[in-house]
Every structure is written in C-alpha cells, then in structure tokens.
C-alpha cells in the first residue's frame, strides 16, 4: 500500500528541500518553546528551562539527519554529498584539476568532432526514401580492371527489360551548362536526369512540380533548379516558378525547386534538365545508372541476376568484346567509397587511441594523488566509511572531472566541426552535413563517462587494496608509495607507448605514401599554368567554332606573360570510359574493348601543359579537315596496342572492325598524363586535332605563364577571350597546380591529422613516463641515498633510473609494433608505394619513440644523480 506514497513523498522531499527544511526548523522550535514554557512554569529559571528542554529533546542534529534521510532518497543525498565533496577536492588542487580537464577535454573534443564526421558521412542514412534499396549499376570489365564505368542508354534498356530485381532504373549525368544573364554568360553546374529519377529516389520538389516522361520525350525546355541556386538568384521568391533561364543559348522554363541539399549520389547541380530515353545529349553517350531494388530483393540477388543479364548480352557481341560485366553497388557505398570509409575509420580509431592515452595519463596522475591521499582515505575508513562508500566517492570524483571535461570537450568539438567543414577535404562526400546532433552528443556523453570511470576506478581499486593502517601511521608518506599503485601506473605507461607507436607507425607509413604520391610524374608540368573552361557560342557552326578557338588561342598568346596556350576537351576525368578499338598490327587486325579516352586538342596543347612528345611529331597546319585523320596517342596505348613496336605510322579505329568510323594514323606518342589524379594508373588515350574534329560543347583552356603570380593575369585573360567574342561563356580562372592538388585533399587530410594525433600521443606518452619516473625517484630518495652512501656512483644511479624507463617504453614498443603490423594489414589500401610492413618506417618511428622516452627519463634521472646521500637519509 505504501511504497508508492513513500516514493512520492520522498520525490517531493527532493524538490522541496528548502521549504521542508524550514518547516522542520519551525516544528522543532515550537516544540522546544513549548517545553521551555512548561519548564518555567515548574519554577526553573530561563537558562535551566532551556537546558532541560534541550536535554529531553535529545541530539538535535542527528535527529535532523535521520529526518532528512527519511525524507528523501539516501542514495541521491549521498551522491549530492559526494559531489559537493568532489568539487571541494578538485578545487583544492587546481593544478591537477586543470591539467586533467585540459587533457581530457582535448581528447573528448577531438573524439566528438571526429565522430560527428563519421556520423554524417558514414552512419546517417542517405536523404532519400528507403535509401537502403538504392543501388548504382556499373558497366565494368574485370579483365582490364575497368571499374565503375557509365552505361549506354541502349544497354540500360536491355537491363531493365531482362531483370526482375529492380523496380526501376534511372539515369543522370553532369552537363556543362552556361547561363546567359543580364551581365553576360557564366558557367553553372547542370545535370541531365531521366524524368523517372526523382520519383525513383522518392524526392519531390519543395515548390512546383517535376517533369513528366511525356514532356521529356517531347523535349520541352523545362528545368528544375536547386535550392541554393533559387536562394542566390531569386532570393527564394515564388516568382521563380515560370521564370525563364537562358541555358546554353536556349530559354528554359523553371517548373520546380528541389529541396535544400538535394544531391544525386555525388552530383550536386544548380539546374536539372530532363533527357529523353532515346537520344543522348551530345558529348555524353554514357550515363550514371541508379536503380531501386524491389522491396524483398537483396543486393546479392540483384547482382546474381545482373551478372546473368551481362552474360546474355555478351553472347550477342563479337568474341573479343565479350568481357563486359554489370556490377550492383549499394548507393551508400558509392557515395563514400571504400578508401574514404577506411580512412575515416582509421582517423576515428586514431583519435580514440589518443583519448585512451589521455585517459591513461590522467588516471596515472590521479593514482599518484591517491597515494598522497592515502591518509585521508585511512581516516575516512577509520571513521566508518565502508569500502563501497570510498569507491563511490572516488568514482564520483572521476565522473565529475570527466563531466567538466566532456562539457568543455563538446564546446571544443563544435568549434572543431566548423573547422572540419571549412578545411576538410572538399571531395569527401556529405562533409557539409557534419553537425553535432543527438547521436554525436550521446557519443560525447558516453566517452566522458568512460573517461570518468577509467579515471576514477583505478584509484578506487588501489584504495581498496591498500591496508589503511600503515599509511595512517606514516602520514601518507610511505616509502614504497603503494606498490599496487605503481604497478598500475607502469602498466599505463606501457599502454601509452604501445598506442603511441601504433599511431606513429601509421603516420610514418602515410608520410612515406605522401612522398611517393608527390614524386609521381603527372605527365605534365603544372607550375605556373592557369586553366579556365570556355565554350564557343552555341549558335556557331562547327567551322565557326573551330575558328573561334583558333582566334582565342592567338589572342591569348599575345597577352604579355603568356608563353603558350592550348585547349583540350577535358583534362581531368572523374569517371572511367571504355571503348571498343580496332588496331592494325603487323600480324593482323584486332578488336578489343579497352578502358579508353579520346580528347580533342589544339596544336600546341602539349607544349602549353608541358607533356613531352616521346616519338613522332605534333599536330601541324598540314593536318586539316581535308587530309586523312591523324592522332597522337599516349604511351599507355602504345605499350598496350603495339607492344615492342613503334606505333608511329600505324592505324586504328574506334568501334569494331566493320564500324563506320574513320581510320586514324598515329603520328606521335606523348607521355602518360595522370588525368584521374596522381594515384590512378594512366590508361590508353588518343588525342585528335581540333582542326580535324568538331569541338565538344566546351573545352579546357590551359595557359602557361612566365609570371610569378599567374592569378594576377586572370582578368586580362578573360578580357582577351571576350575581345574575340563578347558573349563567349568563360569560367573562373584557376591554377592547374591547385586543381591537381584537390585529388590529394583526402590523403592530405588523413596524413596531416594522423601526424598531428601521433605527435600528441607521443608527447602524452613522454609526459606519462616522465611523471612516473619523477615520482618513482621522489619516493625512492632514501633508497638512492643509501645506494650512494654505500658506494654507488652517480653514473650507476643514472643508468638504473634510465633502465627503469627504457624497460617500460621498450615493452610498450614491442606490444605496439605487433599491433601496428596487424593493423597495417587492414589499412594497407590507404598506402601508396609502400607496404604496410615497410621496415624503414618501422625502424624510424621506433628510434624516434626510444629517443623521446630516453629524453623524458633523462631529466629526472639527472636529478637523481645529484641527490646528496646525507640529505636523502635525513628525510623523515
């Protein structure tokens, strides 16, 4: 009948503490006053009456204590008591508290910030309806290591009709788009999507509507705009609906606005146009394909079915081309590729290691303090505190310390999140979604608690193990300093070093990879080269466009500071392409499917970008529209198609033997350009002269300058283009070096963070061992004094102390090296040019660690050497 009312009453007691306390006082005062009055009536004087009343009432404070305990929950009350006490203790030793809070706050902050990245990039579901059913479909060629290739509309139509795993498939691609506005033409990001894409993703425009299949088939000029574009261009006004944008020269009606942050896979665009199912947009014969699985179908089943479809389709192809495969990849895995994932998990693990080291150091500190507090504990035990009570007290201190750190750490993390968003690798998808949400805060709370328990528990265990009496007698200055405590602290130092070497080894391997990556010859010389994208006006005929580029190059050449200029269809390609190529060799003609690239270039393009010509000649004025088509190939194609032979003078054509394509004669071979970043192997490529080929929709213009500050020429260059054609669309000018550097953004991010974290880990390990040795000397002053008194030399003492430190750090080193070897295996795909067991790296970081350990032990050891035996023996 009663527990509920008791709980209710006690809960009330918890909240109405002040009022109830006052009432109790009132009641007691009333009681005493009544008693005093009655006593006076029996003839006592006031003092006597008061004394008698107090006596008959009994102990006032114990009564109140019992009363309070009964009024509310004893556990909570004691927790509050413990907390108050903990606050007092922490305030009494500000040095310890500030150090511990600073170290833990940094560790918790770094962890929380990193977790917020993991959370946003890897853990949060994609912002589509049932994102777990979405998959990317790729055309691949396993025999040539050709992965993640786009697909032709005809193929996709076959996939759709022959498979049952997918509810629907949609296609999309980025298209270079120029917007004509009041102040001229500018480049914006466009996307071309199949009309079923938005329904497939389950995304609806926030305003207006999407296009229908019929509208797309009729090629009506309709366009959806992105939220950011809407805000920037229309100020978020509803008038945007129905407005007209002049895109690539033709007017398009805005019919809808897409939700904020809407992206398809990695594609983020300003304007989204529909494309028909029949005819591809020029310049993009292949498409990205996204499919939605039927609800009960697994990726595995879908893959099995698509592999069967691929085999059926291959059977219809000539034998040499029957190597095509279709791969089904969950959209989330494509969004953030395995490399980025692994890198993020590695960084997450790294900051967690730093956190563990920080917690170990703070634990070590608080253990050292607990020895000094042994007397306090002894007194508390003598006064009747139970073991559990003392343990709870110490845990409360630990958790309080960690909570303060956690709070400070979370504040740091929110700053860190801003930094990461600003300076993180731009090519890491979803990085802009990084924020401190509930899950991140939960993580912060969890690791703060973990820190609190780690920091509070070992002193508690040490306190329980200790026999209270001796330290009580010795006033807490026991000679041994608590052997149990020392053992734990030694173990912590070993752990510090083990973790530190793992991080150092990882950082070392990444630094070596960084060197290798940077020593890779990209196949061109990017220093001092500017690049801009430009397009001939859409209304021009093909010869007029060719003439336009010629004139632009002439004008640019004339700008002071310009050495060379050239154009190419596209230098950096983010997606793999493949092509059937028919090659004439001395022993016959062969058709095969290759990972392949084809670009139009101007005559002096290779000179402008600095790619050496290995054999043959460049394009010349003689190569015109009326002469036989010629081509320059790269070294990779020479090696692949004419191994061991000089390809100059040989012929090949695109497509199978009987295709209607012209035969190209190879006139030159250029060095391989790394067009997918320094880490991707070059693949076969051909270059055709702009004079012999219709120019693509837009081209990359490269300008080699002799200026120290090439960017200063940007205005002059844009003006030069506009002198040729007032309305020619031109992008912003960028530095080629910078553009090429973005391929290394993630590697730079990983490497620099890992270096930073491992330095922190190393310093913390050094501080940890320094503290331990220092402390051990302080408690062994007498012993050292005796040793010196009986004839030990200073050098021997120095070696003894140093040996103690080295033994610990070497133990940690050994354990850590084993861990590093094991972990290196898992992270080997992040490395470039080095193996995960690179001996040089391992030896170098081991030596570094030992050097730091020796340095950290040297200072206290030198002090130990200078101990005066007399002084030492006189202590205590």
């Amino acid at each position, binding site marked *: 009948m009663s527990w509920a009312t008791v709980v209710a009453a006690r809960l009330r007691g918890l909240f109405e503490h002040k009022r109830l306390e006052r009432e109790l006082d009132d009641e*007691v005062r009333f009681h005493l006053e009544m008693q005093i009055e009655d006593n006076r009536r029996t003839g006592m004087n006031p003092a006597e009456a008061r004394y008698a009343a107090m006596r008959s009432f009994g102990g006032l404070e114990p009564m109140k204590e019992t009363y309070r305990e009964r009024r509310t929950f004893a556990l909570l009350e004691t927790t509050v008591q413990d907390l108050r006490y903990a606050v007092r203790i922490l305030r009494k030793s500000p040095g310890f508290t500030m150090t511990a809070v600073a170290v833990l706050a940094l560790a918790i902050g770094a962890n929380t910030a990193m977790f917020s990245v993991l959370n946003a990039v890897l853990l949060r579901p994609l912002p589509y309806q049932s994102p777990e059913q979405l998959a990317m479909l790729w055309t691949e060629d396993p025999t040539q290591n050709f992965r993640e290739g786009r697909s032709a509309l005809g193929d996709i139509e076959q996939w759709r009709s022959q498979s049952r795993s997918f509810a629907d498939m949609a296609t999309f691609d980025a298209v270079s788009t120029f917007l004509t506005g009041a102040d001229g033409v500018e480049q914006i990001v466009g996307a071309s999507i199949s009309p079923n894409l938005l329904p497939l993703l389950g995304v609806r425009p926030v305003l207006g509507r999407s296009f229908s299949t019929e509208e797309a088939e009729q090629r009506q000029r309709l366009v959806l705009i992105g939220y950011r574009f809407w805000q920037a261009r229309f100020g978020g006004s509803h008038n945007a609906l129905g407005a007209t944008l002049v895109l690539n020269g033709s007017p398009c009606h805005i019919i809808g606005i897409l939700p904020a942050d809407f992206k398809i896979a990695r594609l983020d665009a300003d304007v989204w146009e529909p494309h028909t199912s029949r005819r591809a947009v020029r310049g993009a014969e292949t498409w990205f394909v996204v499919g939605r699985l039927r609800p009960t179908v697994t990726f595995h089943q879908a893959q099995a079915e698509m592999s069967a479809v691929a085999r059926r389709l291959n059977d219809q192809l000539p034998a040499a081309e029957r190597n095509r495969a279709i791969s089904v990849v969950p959209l989330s895995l494509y969004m953030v590729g395995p490399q980025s994932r692994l890198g993020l998990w590695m960084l997450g693990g790294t900051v967690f290691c730093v956190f563990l080291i920080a917690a170990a150091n703070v634990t070590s500190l608080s253990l050292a303090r607990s020895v000094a507090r042994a007397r306090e504990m002894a007194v508390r035990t003598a006064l009747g505190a139970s073991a559990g009570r003392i343990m709870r007290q110490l845990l409360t201190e630990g958790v309080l310390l960690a909570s303060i750190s956690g709070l400070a750490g979370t504040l740091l993390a929110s700053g860190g999140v801003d930094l990461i968003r600003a300076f993180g690798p731009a090519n890491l998808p979803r990085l802009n979604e990084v924020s401190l949400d509930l899950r991140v805060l939960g993580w912060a709370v969890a690791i703060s608690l973990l820190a609190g328990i780690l920091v509070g528990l070992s002193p508690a265990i040490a306190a329980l193990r200790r026999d209270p009496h001796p330290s009580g007698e010795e006033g807490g200055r026991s000679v041994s300093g608590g052997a149990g405590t020392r053992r734990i602290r030694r173990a912590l130092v070993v752990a510090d070093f083990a973790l530190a070497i793992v991080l150092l080894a990882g950082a070392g391997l990444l630094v070596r990879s960084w060197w290798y990556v940077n020593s890779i010859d990209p196949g061109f010389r990017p220093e001092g080269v500017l690049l801009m994208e430009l397009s001939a006006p859409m209304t021009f005929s093909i010869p007029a466009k060719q003439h336009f580029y010629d004139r632009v190059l002439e004008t640019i050449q004339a700008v002071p500071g310009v050495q060379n200029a050239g154009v190419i269809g596209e230098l950096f390609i983010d997606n793999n392409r493949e092509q059937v190529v028919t090659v004439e060799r001395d022993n016959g003609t062969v058709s095969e499917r290759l990972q392949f690239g084809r670009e139009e270039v101007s005559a002096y393009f290779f000179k402008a970008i600095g790619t050496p010509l290995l054999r043959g000649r460049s394009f010349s004025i003689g190569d015109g529209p009326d002469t036989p088509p010629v081509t320059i190939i790269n070294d990779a194609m020479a090696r692949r198609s004419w191994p061991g032979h000089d390809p100059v003078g040989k012929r090949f054509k695109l497509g199978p033997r009987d295709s209607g394509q012209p035969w190209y004669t190879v006139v030159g071979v250029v060095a391989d350009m790394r067009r997918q970043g320094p880490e991707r192997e070059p693949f076969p490529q051909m270059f055709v002269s702009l004079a012999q080929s219709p120019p693509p929709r837009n081209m990359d213009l490269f300008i080699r300058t002799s200026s120290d500050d090439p960017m200063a020429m940007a205005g002059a260059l844009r003006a030069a283009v506009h002198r040729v054609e007032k309305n020619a669309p031109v992008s912003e000018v960028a530095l080629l070096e910078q553009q090429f550097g973005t391929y290394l953004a993630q590697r730079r991010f990983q490497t620099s963070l890992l270096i930073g974290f491992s330095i922190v880990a190393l310093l913390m390990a050094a501080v940890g061992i320094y503290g331990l040795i220092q402390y051990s000397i302080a408690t062994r002053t007498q012993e050292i004094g005796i040793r010196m008194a009986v004839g030990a030399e200073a050098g021997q003492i120095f070696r003894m102390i140093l040996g103690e430190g080295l033994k610990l750090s070497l133990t940690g080193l050994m354990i850590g090296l084993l861990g590093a070897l094991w972990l290196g295996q898992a992270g080997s795909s992040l490395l470039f040019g080095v193996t995960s067991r690179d001996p040089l790296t391992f030896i170098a970081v081991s030596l570094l660690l030992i050097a730091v350990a020796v340095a950290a032990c040297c200072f206290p050891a030198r002090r130990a050497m200078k101990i005066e035996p007399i002084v030492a023996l006189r202590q205590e």
Partner: protein
Amino acid sequence: MRNDRADKADVLQGTLILLVLRTLEALGPLHGYGIARRIEQISKDVLQLNQGTLYPALLRMEQDGWISSKWGASEKNRKAKFYSITAAGRKRLAKETEDWRRMSSTIERFVGFDPKRLAEERG
C-alpha cells in the same frame, strides 16, 4: 557502532508507532509536543522517550499514510503542525494493538512460567 544505534531506534520505533497512533485516536489532532507530553504523562517515568526521535517517526508514519498533518494555530495562537490519525492509521492501530497484545501475552507466558527453574539454570 552506527548499526547498534539503528537497531535500538528500530525497536523503539515499533512501540512508538503504537503509542502515537493510540494517542491521536484518543485525543484527536495534536502537535508533536502534545504527543510527546501525552506519552510521557501516560507512561510516567517508565518510558524514557528521547523527544527528538518522535519527529522522524511522525514523518515515516505520514509517508505511510497512517497519519496526516496540517499547519494550524496552537492553543496560544502560535503556528504549529497538527497531526491526526487517518483511516489507514486506524486499521494499522488495530493491527498493532492486536500484535502487541499477542506479543505481550506470549512474553507474559514465558515470564510467568516456572521462574524458579529459570533462576536455577542461571545459577
């Protein structure tokens, strides 16, 4: 040490509940001091009541719902907290009274049974 004290309090509390409930049933609403006086008057010097222990007991009984309290004016028009017995309290009192009777008659039987033999065993 602490445990000893707690044991004694508990023993006292058992009877204290009976005494308080009986007092409130007989005299109606009463403040703490009145209850204490009444118990002392009835028991004279036999029961040495530490008056202070009365208040935690009153709190406990109130939390259990046997008594209720209300602030009011005392006979000399001073603010005092008055306790009165509740229905649950009356039930409890009946049970406590019966327990006590049974207990005391049992003890009585032990005490009254062949005192000489007890004395011999002691000797």
